[in-house]
C-alpha cells in the first residue's frame, strides 16, 4: 500500500479520462433523450409537408367541406374528408357505448366490492386483454361477431360498422377499467370509511363519494379510450369494409380514416400520385383528432383533480 488517502484522491483526480467521461455522458444522454422530441417533430413535419403538397393539387376547401370521397374514380377524383370522418365516428360511437358502461362498472366492482383474491385474478386478465394484438381482434370481429350479429339481424352486411365497433369496444374496456380503477383506488380510505361509518351502503359510497371524487380520472380514461378507438386500424380494416359514405347507416360497409390509409398502402398507388399524398392529409386529420383527445384528457385530469 504505502499510499495515503490524499495521494489516492490526487491520483484519481489526475485521471483526465474519467473527468472527460463524466462530462461527455450527460451530453450523449441528452441527445438520446431528444430522439423522442425529434420523432414528434418528424411526424408533424412529415404530415404538414406532404399534406401541403396534397393541397396544391386538391383545393383545401374541397377537402374540408366536400361530402364525397371518391379517390379511385376514373372520371373525377373527389376528396371530401367527411365520409371518412363519419365512418371513424360511427365505429368510435359504438365502441364507447359498449366500453364505457362495462369498463366503469368493472372498475367500481374491482375498487369497491371485490376481495383481494378476485382483484389478483381479474387484473392480470385485463392486462392479457390489453396485450392482444389488434389484428387478432380484427379476425375475431370478422369471423365471429359479424356472423353472430347476422344470425340475429339478417339485414347486417358482411362488412359493417357495428361488429368492428363492438370489438373496438371490447379492446378498450381494459384501458377504461384499469385507469378508472386506479383513480378510484387513489381516493383515501378514510373518506370511504367515514361514509361507511355513517351507515352508507357500499353502493352509496361508490356512487356518491368515490365516483365523484375520482371523476377527473374516470373522464380522462374515457377520453384516452376514445383516442385509441379513433386511431384503431386493423379491426376496422378487416371488418368495416372500404366504402366511404356520409350517412347514418351502420349496417353496411363503411370506411374509416385509418382503413383508407391501409387500403392505399396495400394497393399500388405510385409514389407522387394525388392518391399517395391523400393518405398524409387523412393521416394529418387523424393525428389532429387523437392529439385533441389526448390534450383534453390531460387537461381534464389536471383541472378537475380532487387533491387530498
Amino acid at each position, binding site marked *: 500500500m504505502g499510499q495515503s488517502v490524499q495521494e489516492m484522491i490526487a491520483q484519481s483526480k489526475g485521471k483526465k479520462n474519467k473527468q472527460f467521461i463524466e462530462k461527455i455522458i*450527460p451530453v*450523449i444522454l441528452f441527445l438520446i433523450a431528444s430522439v423522442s422530441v425529434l420523432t414528434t417533430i418528424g411526424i408533424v413535419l412529415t404530415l404538414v409537408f406532404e399534406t401541403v403538397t396534397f393541397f396544391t393539387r386538391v383545393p383545401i376547401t374541397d377537402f374540408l367541406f366536400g361530402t364525397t370521397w371518391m379517390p379511385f374514380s376514373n372520371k373525377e377524383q373527389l376528396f371530401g374528408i367527411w365520409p371518412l370522418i363519419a365512418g371513424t365516428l360511427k365505429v368510435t360511437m359504438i365502441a364507447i357505448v359498449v366500453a364505457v358502461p362495462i369498463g366503469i362498472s368493472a372498475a367500481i*366492482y374491482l375498487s369497491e366490492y371485490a376481495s383481494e383474491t378476485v382483484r389478483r385474478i381479474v387484473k392480470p386478465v385485463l392486462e392479457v*386483454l390489453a396485450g392482444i*394484438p389488434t389484428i387478432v381482434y380484427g379476425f375475431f370481429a370478422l369471423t*365471429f361477431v359479424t356472423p353472430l350479429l347476422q344470425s340475429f339481424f339478417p339485414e347486417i352486411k358482411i362488412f359493417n360498422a357495428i361488429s368492428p365497433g363492438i370489438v373496438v369496444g371490447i379492446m378498450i374496456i381494459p384501458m377504461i377499467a384499469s385507469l378508472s380503477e386506479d383513480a378510484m383506488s387513489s381516493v383515501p380510505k378514510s373518506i370511504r370509511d367515514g361514509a361507511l361509518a355513517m351507515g352508507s351502503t357500499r353502493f352509496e359510497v361508490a*356512487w356518491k363519494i368515490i365516483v365523484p371524487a375520482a371523476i377527473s380520472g374516470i373522464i380522462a380514461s374515457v377520453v384516452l379510450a376514445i383516442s385509441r378507438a379513433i386511431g384503431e*386500424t386493423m379491426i376496422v380494416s378487416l371488418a368495416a369494409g372500404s366504402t366511404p359514405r356520409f350517412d347514418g347507416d351502420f349496417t353496411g360497409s363503411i370506411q374509416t380514416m385509418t382503413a383508407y390509409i391501409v387500403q392505399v398502402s396495400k394497393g399500388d398507388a405510385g409514389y407522387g400520385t394525388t392518391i399517395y399524398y391523400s393518405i398524409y392529409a387523412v393521416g394529418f386529420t387523424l393525428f389532429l383528432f387523437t392529439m385533441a383527445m*389526448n390534450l383534453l384528457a390531460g387537461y381534464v385530469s389536471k383541472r378537475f383533480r380532487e387533491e387530498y
Partner: protein
Amino acid sequence: MKYIEQEIVLKKMNVRNLINSLFKGIFLMAVVITLLALLILLYRIGSQGYTHLSMDFLTNFASRFPAQAGIKAALVGSLWLMAIVAPTSLILGVGSAIYLEEYAKKNKITDFIRVNISNLAGVPSIVFGLLGLTIFVRALSLGTSILAAGFTMSLLILPVIIVASQEAIRSVPGELRDASYGMGATKWQTILKIILPAAIPGILTGAILALSRAIGETAPLIVIGVPIIIQFLPSGVMDTFTALPMQIYDWSSRPQQEFQAVAAAGIIVLMAVLLFMNSIAVLIRNKYHKRY
C-alpha cells in the same frame, strides 16, 4: 321516544340494501362479460386454428393453396425485426430515462421532453407508419427493409420503454445512491454500477411488454409497404421481409373459408410467441423483485 320511526327506517334500509345488491350484481356482471369475451376469443381461435397447426405449418412458406400455406417466412421475419427493435429501443429508451431521472434539471426543456413523451404515446400506430415511410423508406432510402421497419417500430414503442425505465430507476432507493457517492464513486459510476443493476428487472419487464406490442403491430408495416408473399428468408438487415401480423392479415382478408383456419393457426403461433415473452417478463419480475 318516538324520534326514530323504526318501521320507516327499516323499510328504507331494506330498499337501500336491495339497491346495493342489485348494483353489486350489475357491476359484477361487467367483470364477467369482460372475462367471457376473452374466453370466447381464445376458444374461437383455438378451435378454428388447431386443425391447421402442424410442423409443416411452421416450416412451409406462404402458398396459394390453404393446405400448404405455412408461416416460416413470417416467423423468421418477426425474429429479424425484433433483432433490430430490441437493441435500438432499449438503448434509446433507457438512455432517455437515465437522462430524465438523473441528469435533467428542472427547467422548461425537461418539462417539454416529458410532455412530449406522454403525447407521443397517444399517437396512433398508423401515423408512425407514415413517418417511417417518409423518413426511413424514402428519405434515407432504406426501402422496405428490416432496418426501416425496425427503426419505425422502435420509435413506436419508445415512449413505453422510457416510462417503464423511469419508474424502475425511480424505485431504486436513495440510500444506495448516497452510499455509492459516500464511497467516492462518480455520478456515472454510480449510475452504471449501482442504479442500473438495481433497476434492470423493472426495465426488462417493461421492455419485454413493449416488444410484445411491437411483434403484434400490423398497421405501420402495411403503410411502410412490407410485402406479404415472400418465398425466401432474409439474409441481412437490408433485405425485405414479412412479419407474423402481416401474414395473418393477408390470410384473414382472403375470401376463401379455408384460409380462416390458416389465419387462426397463424394467430395461435403469434399468441404463443407473446405468451412466451410475457412469461419471461413475469419470471424476471418474480425472481429479481426486491423490495428495498
